[in-house]
C-alpha cells in the first residue's frame, strides 16, 4: 500500500498496534479506544504517536492531547461514508492541528481532491492507485468555489482579483 505525503511517495515509519497487542518500539499508531485507556503511558513514550479514528469517532474525543499527536489516521471503511471530511476540517480549524492527517482505507481516486482540500495531507491508498493517478486527480479541477483548508483562491476571489484596477 503506497503512502503518499505532500504529493510524493513517502515511507511509512509508523507501525500499527492493534488493541491488546504489545507496543513495538518507535512510532506507533493506536486506536482511539486504546489511546483513551493508556493515554499517559502512550504520551510518555519517547516516540511519535498516532491515533487512528474510525468514521464515527470525532477528533474532539482527543481533547487537548491532539496537539501532541504526530499523526491522525482517518479511516474510510466505506468510501460512501463522508464523515471524515468533516473530521479533517475540524482538526485543521477548531482543533488547530498541525500534524499529519492521513486517509486510509476504501478511498476512490475521485475523492482525493476533496480530501486534499479539507486538509488531509497523506494518503494510504489501495495498490491500484498510482502516484500518477493521484496527481491527475488533484489537477482535474483547476477552479474551486469554496474556501477550504488548502487555502486555494476561490472563483469569486479570482474574479475579484481580475477586476481590480491595475
Amino acid at each position, binding site marked *: 500500500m503506497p503512502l503518499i505525503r505532500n504529493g510524493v511517495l513517502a515511507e511509512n515509519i509508523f507501525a500499527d498496534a492493534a488493541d491488546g497487542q504489545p507496543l513495538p518500539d518507535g512510532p506507533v499508531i493506536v486506536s482511539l479506544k486504546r489511546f483513551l485507556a493508556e493515554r499517559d503511558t502512550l504520551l510518555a513514550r519517547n516516540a511519535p504517536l498516532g491515533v487512528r479514528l474510525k468514521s464515527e469517532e470525532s477528533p474532539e474525543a482527543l481533547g487537548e492531547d491532539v496537539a501532541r499527536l504526530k499523526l491522525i489516521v482517518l479511516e474510510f471503511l466505506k468510501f460512501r461514508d463522508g464523515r471524515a471530511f468533516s473530521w479533517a476540517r475540524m482538526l485543521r480549524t477548531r482543533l488547530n492541528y498541525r500534524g499529519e492527517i492521513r486517509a486510509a482505507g476504501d478511498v476512490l481516486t475521485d475523492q482525493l481532491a476533496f480530501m486534499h482540500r479539507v486538509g488531509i495531507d497523506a494518503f494510504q491508498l489501495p495498490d491500484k492507485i498510482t502516484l500518477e493517478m493521484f496527481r491527475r486527480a488533484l489537477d482535474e479541477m483547476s477552479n*474551486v468555489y*469554496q474556501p477550504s483548508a488548502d487555502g486555494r483562491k476561490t472563483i469569486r476571489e479570482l474574479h475579484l482579483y481580475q477586476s481590480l484596477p491595475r
Partner: protein
Amino acid sequence: MYRYDEFDAAFVRERVEQFRHQVERRLSGELNEDQFKPLRLMNGLYLQLHAYMLRIAVPYGTLAARQLRMLAHIARKYDKGYGHFTTRQNLQFNWPKLKDVPDILAELATVEMHAIQTSGNCIRNVTADHFAGAAADEVEDPRPVAEIIRQWSSLHPEFSFLPRKFKIAVSGAAADRAALRFHDLAVEIVKNGAGETGYRIYVGGGMGRTPYINYVVGDFVAKPDLLSFLEAVMRVYNEEGRRDNIFKARIKILAHTLGQEEMCKRIAREFAEIKASGTLQLPAEEIARIQAYFAPPAFEDLSDEMPRGDADFEAWKKTNLHPHRAPGYAIATISLKPIGGVPGDCSADQLNALADLMDCFGLGEIRVSHEQNLVLPHVRQKDLPAIHARLKELSLATANAGLVTDIIACPGLDYCDLANARSIPVAQAIATRLAPRQNEIGELKIKISGCINACGHHHAGHIGILGVDKKGVEFYQLQLGGSAAQDAAIGEIMGPGLGAHEIVDAVERVVETYLSLRRNGERFLDTYRRVGAEPFKNMIYREQLHAAH
C-alpha cells in the same frame, strides 16, 4: 439571469472531462459498478427500467431561449425527441447512452448548463419560486440567493459524501410557491422590524417514507452570514446524520430526533466558529454583484389593460395568469398537462417553438415550476392574445393551471427502476374523467408518486396518491389534505390501497363529496380542513372490493 465568467465556464468544462475520464475507466473496468455509481449519480445519471436517465440541472428553474434550443437538440440527437420537467425544476432525458453522456454534457456546457449534483448524496439543485422577480407579493428576488448557494455547494469538498441527498429551496415572497416547508433546508427572505432584509432558515423537512415539515433554526440570519450559517448546518448533518439505515439518513430524522432546541444549539456552535473565521462571510459587494445578474428587464410604462379574446383565451386568462408587480404585465403559466397527455413532458419541437416564441416577444427567460409546468414571467398584457394563439398551435395552451387536471406525476413504473406502480396512466385517467368539471371544481392539486421516494410529492397533494406493490400488482393509497404552500401540511392516509380499477372512481367520489359539502365557493382543501376526513373516508370505501391478497 446569471452568466458564467471564464472561471465558471472552465469549471463546467473540466467537470465534463473529469466525467469523460470516469466513463472511460468504467467501460475499461478500472472502476466497477459499485465504485462508479456514486460518481455517475453526482453527474445526474441513473440506470432506469428501460435505459439510462440523465437529469439536467436547471438552477432555480430559469432558462434562456438558447438553452431551450440546446435541450431540443440533445433530445433529437441523443435521445428520443422529448424531455420531462420534474418537481425540482430540472429536466430529465429518458434514453441517453452512457457512452454518449460525456458528449451530451460537453454540448450542454456550451450554453452554461450541466448535470452536476442532480443526484447523489450531496447538495442537489437549489430551487426557487418560479414567479421570482415578477410576483406582486415578492419581498426580494430569491434567485441571487439561490445562485450564491449553488456556487458554494458545487463540488464542496466536505459535503460530497453526505448520509443522504440534501435539497434546498429559496423563496422571497409571503406566499410560498417553492414548497419550502418540505425541504431539507429552506431559505425565506424576510424583513425584520427595522425594515432590514434577512433570511429565515428552516431545517428538517422532507417527503419519502417518513414525511416531515421543517422548523426554524435561524429566525433572522443577516445577509453576510448566509453561507457561514448554511455551512454550519451542513457540518452538523455530515457529522451526525445517521449512516446505519438508509431510511433514517436524511436531516429530517436528525432534526426531529435531536429536537429544535438541541439542533439550534449545535448549529449555533458551528456557526459562531465559521463566522469568526471570516472565510465564508458575504460582502455586500458580492451580493450586489450577483443580484445585478438578476435585474429585471426594463419594464415599459404601461397600465393594466387586460385584452379580451375568444372563449378559449378567456378561459386561459382565468386560470393561467398571475398578477405581475409591473402594471401592464402578467405572469403566464404554460401548462404541460394536456388532458390525457403525459404530465410534464415536452417535445423537442415544442422546446424549439417556445424558444422562437420567446425571441419573437422579447422574452429573455422562461421558468420551470416544481409543479411541472413552464412559466413566462414578464409578459406584456397586450401580447397575451398572440402568445396564447401560438401556444394553442403548440398544444401548450391548456387552461388548467392549479385545477384538478393539472396533476403532478412522477414517471413511475413506466420509466423508473425504483417504482412500485405506474403513475402516469392514473394521472391521465383522472384528468380525462374530471376535465369536463374542472372549472366547477376549482383549485385542487393532485399529486401522484409511483413509490415511497415521493418524487411526485404526494404527501403535499390536496389529494395525494401513492402507488404500492402488492405481490406484483399495482395498488394505490389515497391521502387527503396535504399542502406545499405556506399552510404546509402532510396529507392523511384514508385507508387501505385501492386497485388500479378503483382509484379513478375513488378520486371522483372524493371530488363529489367535496362539491356536496362545499360552502361559499371554498377550495377542496378548505372543505377538507373544515369537515375532516370522515365524510371522505366513508365515500372512498363505500363500494370497495377488497381483493383477497
